[in-house]
């Protein structure tokens, strides 16, 4: 087979007994992930520079006295790596116990954010309840920050700095930073104030990367008590021309939140404040819910049949009285292709003119 000839050109390392190829520059974690090894992580987000902070991703490498963090250690040809020995698993469990002991026991609703279940999942996997190192906490919740978008529940914070890193590395906003060290660590803004008074743009990226739910999508969390199952529907943002991939979160017939699509071709997991938070218009009470026709100067609700008859009759009359060039259509730059396609087909098919334009000129 030709596969061997291709792979033989790449360096290899030994991963849990298997010889696997890798590309120069890859970390042990990246190689292991490709081979479906289940190495736990907390401070890792593939879009960010690896930090090596939580050390949950440790593995054993032959010739090294202590385990190394796989997310920051580069793969080297001939390396012998073991990802889940008893010693490593014990080490991880102890680390996790320490981390978890900082947090009050609380159910973290998945509506808080895309990564919000990461710590909960590991807690269950390692069966850690947090009682072993009781009494130590780091970070305290900012009850005073009443912005309607981002809950800052730092009692749940584990100091992985993913929020600070995503804000700096991906957004370039540098709105949040780390204050103090150790058990006094606190994620904060300049002058330790409210997000409103910082450079925060409310893009929500920190919320979506937080592995504990310490940062929560406050708008989505309004639906926490709704018992209906949470459904995600892949779509595209309704605002600008970038076309970010999103998942629409719904419970029953209610739209409850938005999540950026990590695999969105245009956005690669990013969103802005509009895409992330400005969806309430869909089910707003101001929505037009009935067809309307002007009668005696007032717009009044009528049936679809009547409204369509009236709309069509008006166009037919204009064309009959003033010629087919007296009818014009304006297509929408917001509606989907099918809207404009049927609109232009109607104008061209009914009147034989090219009397149509869209709103791109203004």
């Amino acid at each position, binding site marked *: 087979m030709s596969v061997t000839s291709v792979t033989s050109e790449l360096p290899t390392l030994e991963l849990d007994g298997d010889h696997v190829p890798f590309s120069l520059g890859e970390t042990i974690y990246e190689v292991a992930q490709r081979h479906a090894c289940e190495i736990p992580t907390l401070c890792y987000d593939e879009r960010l520079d690896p930090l090596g902070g939580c050390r949950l991703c440790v593995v054993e490498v032959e010739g090294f006295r202590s385990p190394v963090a796989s997310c920051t250690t580069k793969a080297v040809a001939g390396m012998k790596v073991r990802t889940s020995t008893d010693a490593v698993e014990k080490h991880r469990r102890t680390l996790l116990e320490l981390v978890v002991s900082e947090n009050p026991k609380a159910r973290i609703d998945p509506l808080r954010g895309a990564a919000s279940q990461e710590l909960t999942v590991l807690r269950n996997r390692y069966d850690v309840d947090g009682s072993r190192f009781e009494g130590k906490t780091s970070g305290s919740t900012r009850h005073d920050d009443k912005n309607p978008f981002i809950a800052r529940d730092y009692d749940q914070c584990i100091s992985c700095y993913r929020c600070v890193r995503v804000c700096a590395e991906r957004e370039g906003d540098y709105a949040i930073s780390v204050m103090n060290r150790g058990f006094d660590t606190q994620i904060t803004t300049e002058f330790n104030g409210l997000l409103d008074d910082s450079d925060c743009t409310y893009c929500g990226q920190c919320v979506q990367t937080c592995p504990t739910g310490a940062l929560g999508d406050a708008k989505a969390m309004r639906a926490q008590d709704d018992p209906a199952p949470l459904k995600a529907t892949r*779509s595209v943002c309704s605002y600008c021309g970038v076309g970010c991939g999103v998942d629409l979160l719904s419970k029953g017939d209610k739209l409850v939140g938005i999540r950026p699509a990590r695999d969105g071709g245009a956005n690669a997991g990013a969103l802005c404040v509009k895409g992330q938070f*400005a969806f309430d218009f869909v089910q707003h009470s101001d929505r037009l819910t009935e067809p309307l026709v002007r009668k005696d100067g007032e717009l009044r609700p009528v049936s679809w049949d009547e409204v369509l008859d009236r709309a069509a009759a008006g166009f037919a009359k204009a064309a009959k009285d003033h010629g087919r060039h007296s009818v014009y259509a*304006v297509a929408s730059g917001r509606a*989907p292709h099918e809207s404009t396609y049927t609109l232009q*087909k109607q104008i061209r098919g009914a009147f034989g003119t090219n*009397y149509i334009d869209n709103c791109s000129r203004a």
Partner: protein
Amino acid sequence: MSNPLSDMEEPDVIFCIGTNMTECHPVAATRLHQARRRGATLIVADPRRITLAKRADIYLPLKVGTDVALLLGMAHVIAREGLVDSAFIESRTLEADAFLEHIKAFTPEWAEGICEVPAVDIERAALAYARGRRGAVYYTLGITEHICGVDNVQSLCNLVLMTGHIGRAGTGINPMRGQNNIQGAGDAGGLPNNYPGFQSVEKPEFQKKFSALYGRQIDGECGITKVRALEYAVDGKMNAMLICGENTLVSDPDRKHCEKALRALDHLVVVDIFLTETAELADVVLPASAWGETDGVYANTERRVQRVRAAVPPQGQAKPEWWIMSQLAKRLGVSGFEYESAADVFNELCEVSPIYKGLNWERAGAASYHWPVPYDGHPGTPRLHEETFPSKTGRGTFKRIEYREPAEVVDDEYPVWLTTGRRLQHYHTRTMTARAGMQYFVPEETLEVHPKDVEAWGLTDGGKVRMASRRGAVELTVEATDRSPRGTVFGSFGFGDTAVDDLTGAGYDPVTETAELKVCVVRLQPAVPYSEPVA
């Protein structure tokens, strides 16, 4: 865009002009940030000290409406320093000699006299852009919404052609589209000059094809633009209009003129999700299903074709627009509207459009194709112009552009420049964002004025100002900020109550009929007479 969004992480020189990217296309800005982190040089040309300008390595604070002068100056420097890509010019362009002769007159010092950017900075920017291995240009409405919009774009094309920064990763000339599916509105044939898939209505072969498809003879000449149609309406030459999902009244320049036009119609039908200011003038209002309730297809600014999906049922009796149009068409006696789903409609669009030929509803679901996708099995075209340009000769032609003044220039009566734009949290006429909690950020429209001008003109930060142009007047709250340069004020459009656009719209680009929304001249005075504070 000539290049895909992912290419925004690749350039080593970035030239942003007339784009407030961190506010209007924030996610695109996050991709540029990745190039910056790898050491790319950022050049920003904008009258206002926007966030992007603060992040720039080279900032060019040009006077509003003088882009052509700046770009001519840059072209001059590139040619003078021998930084033109001769191999590229030789193999891919036309009329280079005449162009290089033309720009000899336009020194950076000449440009400085018009655009007020120091000549040394024009030199620096030109050298940086030309010396980069991968240089990419990004622009938006700040370039096109001028009477010289086409000249501006052509001037950028000249820079791209002389340096060969096109057709490769991390290069190109990249307009960023404003609305989610404005690209799709053109793709699907919502244009007076093109059938779906940009097939010209003036070409007999396409005219024949679509006349046969749509079951009647269609005019062989272009229709008129919306701007012209509104003028006709005022003159009584247009009688009926069908407006789909656009708050024309608030988004258009010169609101009074627009309102007059719409009121003059015998029959106005509006399809929308809210009773907008425009819908309130209508004879018939048809409720459309909204985003989140509708299945369909969008094409983004990089021509990526993607599906939107319904997650919740439509509110009340709202219906998808394709259904509404089909019902109307049937009543107008047109056949060929027996669609049962959005998929049926989209598949027909693909069949009749060569650039969509290789796509269908299923494939659009992958969200990974950039048109053109000319045949089944074609991978799509994320990057344009790799080998040729879309012209008869396949070559790009240099154009000899001259600088022209905006339709209005400051004078004694109207001594201040007004320029308009958008705010991060808002979108067009705010019909959506204002109903989605975004008024949290900008509860009231403000007029940005330089602090020294606030003082010089007797205004107060947070106080009211009355701003008048030749077309109207509005009252606004003053925000003192050095984002605006001295002598130029900024307001955003999209607030029905203070509509800054009542004032703009002094002229149109003669080619595209795009309104000059970016510049007009105004005079300002405190709205409440100033009185000495009591000591």
